[in-house]
């Protein structure tokens, strides 16, 4: 700069020089009367809305959400509601429609090996939807329905109208037939095995009411179940009513009025809260422990033979295996079990005696079925419960879901609002009616979605059927983070090279969006009006989800996005039934109101919307399977025989080596504590549901992540002993790895964890250093290390918890976290 004129002075610069290079200003002078509200929106306003994390009231000032508090009815709100502002204003938000550059240039012939590390360009909504639509056309006409995969929906944002999967599927159904999926990632093994055994999925069924358990149970066993952690979130708007009962349970434990035992390798959040007893078990060996318990019950004649005779089938076919008279000639004694499960034989005997000594309620979590042979612990649990003979009695029997969406809170019985239809309206046909799948199966078990790409045309067993895996060419993900829930990232990378076109619709830059070609910004549920059930199982009421702020940036509701898509083939009016958002809400609400009639009076929609909620009275306490116990003939179970099937002839008829006709203990492909591969990788890594997220949702909320991340990374929980042996201190950066992958994480040393067990919570966002196979994950997604194998030929579900790893202190310069927006202050030590 010149010495005498220090200020910016550009010699010879005339305005004309610049004029050709500038656009009209983004600023406008404003007329005085528009002043007050337009820019700052000086008004302040409390609104009500719902979420997986519960109902909230939100203060909106200046067009911005500035404060969140729990809805008054919610007496046990989760701290996660404080992450909602961070979720709305996350710097990871997708702000505009985007297309991967190479895909924009070359379409379906793009270089797919660049996926995940490719350049994007912003496009207009019209461009984006035109491209999306022309791909639908191309795939339907040049391949057919087998090439289009749409079964890709997950824990959508809440709201019955805007439920994103329905919008995507309705639009896709209008266009043509597609490949869909069966099962889900949470309960894949349980929901397939239990209908054979207990006649229902059980995992999604209402369970015995907590107040019955509190009154009648002498002993409660939480088997790999952590309700205090998992009940923070619900499938619809969560009420958190279960916590009142858990509090009573805690008080009863303190007064020694009940015995509560948590069977878990880890001291869970529930155990810490309740102050209950703990029964350690080696990871993945629960079935061995159960066999030991069953052996004790039988040999000590503590089992209920009358119950077995009246209500079950096939015990006599299971018995030889238990007693060592079967093919393996091994009695499943407590001594036998001790060697596998690490519980002393004497302790096993005492536990069996305790269970048989009075009313015992078994409560299973879902973790034990998210492993190889995940069918077995659930089946064997049912056998144990049948031997105890308390199924259908108040405070006895078995539950598989008391940690989920307030199961155990009696149902009000009221009808809940319906949702936006995912099907075509009656009589309508898709634009392309072609149903020629070229011999491929039109449906794949969801967890085998990557196999389908890597092993096209492979015929696999699934639940008594044969499935020929279709090598689909185009995939559409809607509100679904496939790159969080599916196992084995490096395998996924390879598989995604084979996809021609990937479309992702989401509100935040998940890894799934990074690996997509067309990325469409949906707004969050806080930027749209909706209604939801308050309490998925309790049916406590209906909640208004009042829009807090307008959609940010260029984002749109899923409804608007897919209406725009269907408009491209002239079916937008059919899609929307010519109704707008509020008309739909009134329609869904009034239908619900009509169904509830005078039994559950509801105000007219307008009144409801202004008030924000309608609540229904509590339902009556209820006992699961009581009707079956009362009259097993009329109220037969949904099993092939109508009875509890300890031996399933049907499963036996499939001749699956990995799932025979009765529950068995089977060694895993890898296992810590002396199991296969434990010499190289001595630590079992469990990928439990996170404590401060909902799966991968809210991982992008910076304020929330700040409460648990370590040096900006996902915490890896580990025992003090394991840490000491590896020279690791709490707060260190560590590398967790096995042959499948590696991640950089922060060590969280905690005495809640026993030696040989580490926890990396699922839902941590994937952020590899690059697109190359094997790249270091910079944040700590456990599925970088987990294996992508089916539980068995029966359920073909995920086996995420069958995973061993090693951990080492990280030395060298730590690469920055690439998973999402987050603190940049991360520096290697």
């Amino acid at each position, binding site marked *: 700069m010149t010495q005498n004129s220090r200020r910016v002075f550009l010699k010879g610069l005339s305005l004309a020089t610049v004029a050709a290079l500038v656009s009209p200003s983004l600023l406008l002078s404003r007329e005085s009367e528009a002043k007050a509200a337009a820019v700052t929106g000086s008004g302040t306003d409390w609104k009500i809305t719902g979420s997986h994390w519960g109902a909230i009231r939100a203060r909106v000032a200046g067009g911005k959400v500035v404060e969140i508090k729990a809805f008054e009815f919610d007496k046990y709100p989760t701290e996660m509601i404080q992450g909602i502002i961070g979720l709305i204003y996350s710097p990871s938000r997708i702000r505009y429609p985007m297309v991967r550059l190479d895909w924009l240039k070359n379409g379906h012939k793009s270089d797919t090996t660049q996926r995940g590390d490719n350049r994007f360009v912003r496009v207009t909504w019209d461009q984006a939807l035109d491209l999306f639509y022309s791909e639908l056309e191309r795939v339907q006409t040049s391949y057919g329905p087998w090439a289009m995969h749409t079964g890709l929906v997950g824990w959508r944002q809440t709201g019955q109208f805007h439920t994103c999967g329905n919008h995507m599927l309705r639009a896709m159904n209008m266009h043509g037939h597609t490949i869909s999926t069966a099962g889900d990632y949470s309960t894949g093994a349980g929901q397939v095995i239990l209908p054979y055994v207990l006649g229902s999925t059980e995992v999604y069924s209402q369970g015995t009411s907590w107040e019955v358990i509190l009154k009648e149970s002498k002993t409660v066993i939480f088997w790999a179940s952590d309700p205090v952690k998992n009940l923070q979130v619900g499938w619809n708007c969560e009420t958190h009513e279960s916590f009142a009962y858990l509090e009573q349970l805690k008080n009863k434990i303190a007064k020694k009025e009940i015995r509560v035992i948590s069977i878990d390798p880890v001291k869970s959040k529930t155990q810490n809260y309740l102050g209950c007893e703990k029964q350690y078990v080696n990871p993945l060996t629960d079935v061995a422990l159960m066999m030991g318990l069953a052996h004790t019950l039988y040999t000590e004649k503590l089992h209920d033979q009358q119950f077995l005779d009246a209500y079950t089938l096939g015990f006599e076919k299971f018995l030889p295996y238990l007693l060592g008279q079967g093919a393996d000639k091994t009695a499943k004694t407590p001594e036998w079990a001790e060697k596998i499960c690490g519980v002393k034989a004497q302790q096993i005997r005492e536990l069996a005696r305790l269970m048989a000594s009075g009313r015992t309620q078994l409560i299973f979590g879902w973790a034990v079925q998210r492993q190889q042979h995940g069918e077995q612990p659930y089946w064997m649990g049912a056998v144990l419960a049948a031997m105890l003979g308390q199924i259908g009695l108040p405070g006895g029997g078995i539950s598989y879901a008391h940690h989920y969406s307030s199961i155990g809170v009696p149902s009000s019985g009221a009808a809940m609002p319906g949702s936006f239809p995912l099907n075509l309206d009656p009589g309508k046909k898709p634009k392309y009616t072609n149903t020629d799948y070229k011999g491929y199966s039109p449906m794949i078990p969801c967890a085998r979605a990557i196999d389908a790409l890597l092993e096209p045309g492979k015929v696999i067993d699934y639940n008594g059927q044969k499935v020929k895996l279709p090598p689909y060419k185009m995939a559409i993900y809607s509100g679904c983070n496939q790159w969080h829930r599916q196992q084995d990232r490096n395998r996924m990378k390879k598989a995604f090279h084979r996809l021609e076109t990937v479309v992702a619709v989401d509100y935040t830059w998940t890894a799934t969006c990074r690996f997509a070609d067309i990325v469409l910004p949906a707004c969050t549920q806080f930027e749209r009006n909706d209604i939801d059930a308050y309490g998925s199982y309790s049916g406590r009421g209906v909640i208004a989800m009042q829009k807090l702020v307008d959609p940010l940036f260029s984002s749109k509701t899923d409804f608007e996005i897919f209406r725009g898509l269907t408009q491209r083939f002239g079916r937008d009016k059919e899609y929307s039934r010519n109704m707008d958002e509020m008309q739909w809400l009134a329609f869904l609400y009034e239908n619900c109101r009509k169904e509830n009639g005078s039994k559950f009076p509801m105000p007219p929609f307008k009144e409801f919307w202004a008030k924000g909620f309608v609540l229904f009275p509590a339902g009556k306490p209820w006992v699961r399977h009581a009707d079956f116990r009362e009259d097993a003939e009329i109220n037969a179970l949904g099993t092939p*025989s109508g009875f509890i099937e300890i031996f399933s002839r049907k499963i036996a008829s499939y001749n699956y080596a990995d799932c025979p006709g009765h529950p068995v203990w089977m060694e895993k492909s890898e296992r810590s504590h002396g199991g296969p591969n434990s010499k190289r990788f001595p630590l079992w890594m469990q990928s439990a549901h996170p404590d401060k997220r909902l799966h991968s949702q809210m991982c992008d909320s910076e304020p929330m992540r700040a409460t648990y991340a370590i040096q900006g990374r996902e915490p890896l929980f580990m025992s003090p002993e394991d840490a000491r042996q590896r020279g690791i201190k709490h707060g260190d950066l560590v590398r967790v790895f096995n042959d499948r992958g590696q991640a950089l994480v922060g060590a969280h040393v905690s005495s809640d964890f026993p030696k040989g067990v580490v926890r990396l919570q699922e839902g941590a966002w994937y952020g590899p250093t690059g697109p190359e196979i094997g790249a270091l994950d910079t944040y700590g997604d456990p599925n970088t290390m987990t294996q992508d194998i089916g539980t068995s030929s029966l359920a073909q579900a995920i086996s995420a918890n069958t995973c061993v790893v090693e951990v080492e202190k990280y030395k060298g310069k730590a690469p920055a976290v690439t998973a999402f927006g987050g603190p940049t202050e991360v520096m290697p030590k």
Partner: protein
Amino acid sequence: MKKIWIWLRNLFCKPAAKIGLGVLVTVGFIAGILAWQGFNAGMAATNTEEFCVSCHTMHQNQEELKETVHWSNRSGVRAQCSDCHVPHDFTDKMARKIQASVEVWSHLTGKIDTPEKFEANRARLAQNEWDRFKANGSKECRTCHDYNSMDFEKMRETSREAMRGAAERNQSCVDCHQGIAHKKPEKTDARNPAFDGLIQAAGNESVKVGGTYFNVYPRELYLDEAMSKVAGKLEVGAPVKVLQEKGDAQQVEVSAWRKSKGFGRVWYGHFAKNITVATLEKAVAQDKQLVKIAESKEDPNTGLIWQKSSATFWIKKGEVVASTDPIWSVAKDSYKNSCSVCHKQPDEAHFDANTWPGLFGGMVGFTSMDKDTQGLVLKYLQNNSSDFKKPSH
């Protein structure tokens, strides 16, 4: 130059743009009132109106009537209380008055002396009147609305065939037309209105003796022709062979499979498939005179012995159809609508008949289907399962 610059920068030229804040637009729902497309013949006005309203708890009833076409219409003919509720024939009129004295008594003793109490009793009182209309073939209605004077061609297309059929069967008006003069009572356990269509279709069915028909609504099986002794329950979709018809009753043969374990109360449509067609009272199921067993065989999937059984029962006439198509069509709609709320509903043939009850039972709690609809949908799924069909794709 600066002016051009300013113009380019556009600062003071554009009008102020309002930055949109969310405006909640609530849309009120306007309930459409379906006009009663009646045929108003001459109606004699009587002077009993004041009488009724003064003694009966009926101010509200009259107010409701005033909202309807029976009170105000383009032809200026008005129906009053007695036109519909008091038989025009002297004998019947007296009989009705005697019956009505119970209602007067109720009024005097305070049983129905407030609008709230009336509301609580509305369903029962309405049922009384419906039963009466049913019994007399809606005689009072037909003073004005006579089948013989109806010109079906002048009717709306949607009404024409229904009315023609009703006329042929000489059907009672209130079978279909309820809640036309007063508020229709809200049924506490309202059945899926889709069943009404099925029952109507069954009414149109001309049943031939010896033919096989399918039940349209879950209902009672009787041991006797007078339909006084309940034998059990016949499920929706259950096939029956019609043996004879007597009065309001039909004698039918039910033949099905049952398990030997237990009392054999539950009867299933196919061997080793848990698709319930009937459930019998314990004593009935054990009655060896009644229940004939043709054969027994073991279900390889469970090891249970199944017996092919048959028995004859009586059922109420007019609630069977010749094909399951209309039944499954209703079921399919319910399935598609209710089960797509949370997820894409699986293809019917994705599971077999014995797997469906477990899956359906685990999920149905999320829907608002009433019990009868649940049974209907489950039977639809089982009958269209992989045991009977290949997956549809």
